[in-house]
């Protein structure tokens, strides 16, 4: 019953070739095969957003994808956000605004916000509220997360456009 497949993909700028079980989720692959445990699993059915990663420039739920669906893809996880010791503006703003408590949902929010700010570099608070409405946080009440994203927006918005072209034609 072992059905395995070779998977090639790039995660945080590093290329991997791995033999994986075809039924393994992308989240489990990142966490267990690549030891990138910053991507968390809160519900494993696509609602809470804790497992959000960026795949080919788009925020996706890694618990709803099989690893093999990421064949050839370029992925970014929370571990790839900071530039060495230099925090990403979103990370710095999250600390500054106390936008996290237990920290479990935080990587998902950071990745959602990172993809969102590339699409919409000058968002209103209402747009931010909408953009993160697919991520659940049980600690903060969302308010400081919205403040943090708004605070980071000018710095993130000033960065170059997305490096990766998208596979699909979605807007």
């Amino acid at each position, binding site marked *: *019953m072992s059905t395995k497949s070779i998977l090639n993909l790039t995660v945080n700028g590093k290329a991997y070739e791995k033999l994986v*079980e075809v*039924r*393994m989720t992308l989240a489990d692959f990142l*966490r*267990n095969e690549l*030891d*990138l*445990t*910053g*991507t*968390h*699993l*809160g*519900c*494993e*059915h696509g*609602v*809470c957003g*804790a497992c959000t990663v960026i795949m080919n420039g788009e925020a996706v739920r890694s618990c709803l994808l099989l690893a093999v669906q990421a064949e050839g893809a370029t992925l970014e*996880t*929370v*571990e790839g*956000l*900071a530039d060495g010791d230099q*925090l990403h503006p979103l*990370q710095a703003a*999250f*600390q*500054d605004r*106390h936008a*996290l*408590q*237990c*920290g*479990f*949902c*935080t*990587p998902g929010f*950071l990745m959602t916000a990172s993809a969102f700010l590339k699409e919409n570099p000058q968002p209103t608070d209402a747009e931010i*509220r*909408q953009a*993160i*409405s*697919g*991520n*659940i*946080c*049980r*600690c*903060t*009440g*969302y*308010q*400081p*997360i*919205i403040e943090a994203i708004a605070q980071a927006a000018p710095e993130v918005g000033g960065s170059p456009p997305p490096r990766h072209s998208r596979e699909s034609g979605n807007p």
Partner: protein
Amino acid sequence: MAESYIGAPIRRREDIRFITGAGTYVDDIKLPHMVHAAILRSPHAHARILSIDTKRAEALPGVVSVFTLEDIGELDATVPIRMYKIPGLDKYLQPSLARDMVRYVGEPVAVAVAESRYLAEDALDAIDVDYEILQEVMDVREALEDKVLVHEHNGTNLAGVHHVSIGDADKAFAEADYTRREEFRVHRFTGNPMETRGAVAHFDRGKGELRVYGATKLPHLNRQTIAAFLQLPEHKCHFEENDVGGGFGIRGELYPEDFLIPFASVRLGLPVKWIEDRREHLLAANHSRQVTCELEIAARKDGTLLALRAQIYGDMGAYVRTHGGLVPCSTAALLTGPYRIPNYEAKIHCIMTNKTGLGTLRAPGRVESCFYRERMLDMMARDLDLDPVELRKKNLVTPEEIPYEIGFTRPSSHPTILDSGDYASALRQALERFQYDEMLELQGLRDDGRYHGVGLSYFVKNTGGLEPYEGARMVVGEGGGVSVYLSIAQLGQGHETAMAQICADALCVPMDAISVFHGNTDLSPFGWGTFASRGTVMAGNAVHLTALQLKDKILEAAARHLDVDAANLSLEDGNIVQTGTEAPALPLGELVAHMRESITPEQGVPELEATAYYNSNNITHTYGVHLAHVAVDPETGMLEVLKYLVVEDVGRVVNPLMVHGQTVGAAVQGIGGVVLEELVYGEGGQLLTTTFLDYLLPTSTDVPPIDDLVLEEAPSPYNPLGVKGAGEGGIVGTAGALGNAVSNALGIEVKDLPLSPDRIRAWLRAREDG
């Protein structure tokens, strides 16, 4: 730094690891040769187990072991009650695995261990269990008839009863101008931390030591229980909490799985990991709330409160778990709130049903009682044509009456005493900040086609106390670095920052020189836990006391070294200063280096160390006001919270950033629970809300920005720091304020929750029907 660290909005030091993905939660623990457990759970609410056959499962490739209660054999243990041990409840305890019967959907029946979580879950499908399905009982009123018994051998579903009696309520009712009786109901919901439960147990056969990762909240108590179960010496069991993705009452209590995973590791001699999935969490981890109350109020015509009488019914589910009768008993504990109500009687019933066991959820019982009382006060104000704010003002306990002893409202030898407060001041500030009078103008049907309403609730919330102590050990090391070892656990609050602030102030060293360690039973032999907003009160004061002792030791050692009188020395910003002289300061690090190099036997040990416990059964009480402005769409029944204010006096703020975070987060959690969340049981006792598609948690678009005002007008006289804790004030008043706001919007009397669209529509239809 001459300024105080306490009170400063210092950014949390724990954040760096969390925002970079470098936190270590229990599922991030990986050990060599680790295997994975999955738990077979009952699909039936009430059934007899006729047989369990594990042979097919055991034969599957990758399966290491499958076990049932029979394999646990003589080690068989039940989940113990740790508090609110009402007589009788101990006959309703949960075994580690189902013993002949299953009593709720989700009850553990067998455990499969395999090389991966995927394979372990496959194995569950191959375990054959033959059940004889029995009639279930899901409603407390029906359960009280004892026609269907959840525990047949006990002969009743009424597991325990507790009485509270203060003054003479019957006499007060007989003489009162005004009385009213209502039945209120709070629904069943639960905490849902973002990280589900989990454990990694590693029994080292060679050393005979057990290490359990994923413990939290009460690691020492849980270690004690598991060590006794496995017949291991307690000091050979090491419980580590790692990072924890939220608590809210549910996480870290002892559950059947806490026996099963260590047992599997001992049995197999391998590290065993179990990570709960969300469906399991909703099915098997503690449910909460669901308390019904028949409440009677007695007053004079002028609104002077005379008495409360209550019959309280707690839906305990199928087994009494660690919290014992806490949820319904805590409902009674502060039912009188911040008001002068001299006569109070309550009878609390703990009733068994075929549901998941009941446990705590942030401000358990206090959210419920605040809802009952504050709704009743609004009804009474309407009946007597009194202004609801004036009614409350008239009855608030005054500063002159404090400390105000309410009486024995809990099954405990300590009376409930309101320790400090200016309740009228908090109310005044809340009304001003909310612009209450202007907001009242908005009530009624508005141009947006919605009914608007404003609601108020006043709460008191006990904090600290409950379990007698927490401890801290403090050691000065190389370079003057200070290690602080806490007995208390952290579930995401920020102890590493807050405790360093407290230590820095008392020890007079820079905060950067301090590291805080916690969450390992090896750091401290004894400790209780993180619940009831007790962390800052208990551990904060332990750190404070330890730091003061350590400072004395440092100055004595410095006095010996410098050959001066210790009375002439002081510690300032990490340097030992000879007061009133021009002598150069001695950096703490130099003193440490000297002692390390040249201590003599007569001088004692080379380390500068102190250990102290803060030991107090005195319960502190925060207090405050919630105010809500809501709009209800009469067509859809949709409720929108437009404006929300929480005012809470926490005695003294250690870190305003974190107190603000606790308040806002708790308020949103409270609004979610009152408006969106419900654990719904359907036919055959099946839980219908087993995903986040069915069980709705509040998201960013469901809630408004929360305004908060944190007061420090009434430090607690009970502890050296004057702190009261701040974890629950943001949630306690949510049901009361929202219930009152919706009632005012629609001209109805809300008596039960949740405030969901279907229920609001039903109330509107009932109103239209007259």
